[in-house]
């Protein structure tokens, strides 16, 4: 189980994993979405950062849950 998990993490951080491309996409969505809601640049930046971190961690958590389910089922 631990071996499989370290294999999963190694694949996740490897340079040729296209899943990393979700993060720039998430950053662009965060900035555009928050720029439609706010006008001050500082407010846009901070709220976009908050959005990015929340969604980024959420995607990571979801990935881990799906990975654990794929081992168990």
């Amino acid at each position: 189980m631990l071996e499989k998990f370290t294999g999963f993490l190694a694949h996740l951080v490897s340079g040729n994993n296209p899943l990393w491309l979700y993060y720039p996409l998430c950053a662009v969505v965060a900035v555009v979405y928050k720029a439609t809601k706010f006008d001050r640049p500082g407010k846009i930046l901070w709220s976009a950062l908050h959005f990015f971190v929340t969604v980024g961690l959420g995607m990571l958590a979801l990935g881990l849950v799906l990975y654990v389910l794929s081992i168990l089922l």
Partner: protein
Amino acid sequence: MTPRDRAAPSPVTALVLGWAIPGAGHAYQGRWGKAALFFILIVGLLVAGFALGRGTNVQRGEWWFAAQVGAGGPAIALVPLSKHFERQGPIDWADPYREMGTLYTAIAGFLNILVMMDAYNKLAHPHRPSAEEAA
């Protein structure tokens, strides 16, 4: 209708301009900073997705195009280019980078629809408080 009313910017024009060129709806209102930000991010996302898809993933016959066309002029301009690159060789439909690129282009279309609605709303409901003012 007074001459002043006639000169007032139209929300529908902002919507149409925003579709034709991402950010143009905001430029029409004189909000140049946001216009530049939206143009760079949306067109950048569209072009990045197109490049990831080896230039073959913006095609009129595909379902994805319904989302991609939200990015307006730039997305339509990529259609003949996509046809050109498709003729260069077979498409690898299982390529994960191509799939990711297609997703990028589709999200660019959805984001531009959001930006168009923002440009429209600012003119159609000028007295409605923004999220910033309401906070």
